[in-house]
């Protein structure tokens, strides 16, 4: 049995009442102003979040003590239409240093009218994070053909599957 469980991407979109150039500019230049603040791998509060506007740049949080956390790499930067970034945070909430084990998120800006822009976000290649759920996949693909987590849930109900 060779069951490959590949996860669906996270897809979201929003329509904003703003021209495409402004939609792009606010998303990139002010990213830190709307990113939820609970998202932080630093030991201290975030002083600012910087989105470096170029391929090869990073998105990083800077803590109030000057420490930095670079959690995304800019893979494509195409104003005002598109950005593509990596997501270098592992399922264990640590910075992932192996680029092969990172997912990616793309943001596309589409002008619906001169004053209205549709922003589509896709966070994909989630399975590249790997180790966080390797055990689950082995369980699915193994001879027993039974996901470990399903067993675990069954145990919670006190009924053997």
């Amino acid at each position, binding site marked *: 049995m060779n069951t490959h469980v590949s996860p669906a991407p996270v897809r*979201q979109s*929003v329509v904003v009442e703003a021209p495409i150039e*402004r939609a792009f500019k606010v998303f990139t*230049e002010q990213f830190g102003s709307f990113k939820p603040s609970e998202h932080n791998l630093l030991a201290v509060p975030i002083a600012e979040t910087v989105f470096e506007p170029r391929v090869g740049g990073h998105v990083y949080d800077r803590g109030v003590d000057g420490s930095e956390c670079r959690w995304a790499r800019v893979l494509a930067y195409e104003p005002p239409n598109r950005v593509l970034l990596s997501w270098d945070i592992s*399922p264990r909430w640590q910075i992932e240093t192996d680029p092969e084990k990172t997912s990616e998120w793309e943001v596309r800006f589409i002008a619906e009218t001169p004053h209205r822009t549709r*922003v589509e976000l896709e966070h994909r290649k*989630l399975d590249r994070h790997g180790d966080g759920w390797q055990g*689950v996949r082995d369980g*699915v693909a193994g001879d027993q053909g039974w996901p470990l987590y399903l067993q675990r849930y069954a145990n919670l109900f006190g009924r053997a599957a």
Partner: protein
Amino acid sequence: MTVESAQITALGDPTRRTIFELIADRPRSVAEITRQVQVSQSAVSQHLKVLRDSRLVRAEPKGASNVYHIDPHGLGQMRAWLDQFWSKTLAAYKVAVEQPPRKSK
């Protein structure tokens, strides 16, 4: 944590658990699942909605219908978290971008 308790609740129903087990065995369509259980197709669809909402399974369009796959557990958690993260981020972004342009950042 919310996701996990939703998953536990979702699997508390015996029919739903049977449906989930069928999907865990291999990806299946609603019609295929209906042939294996003692309830109507519309009831199966309702159960699938609950399983989908709690991130235990996901639907992939295939022709006129959906094929259901399991969402690996650890990944399901991360995926659910990312879903919420991006949802909050885009909502806050909409507010930011629709403010009148400021002279200085």
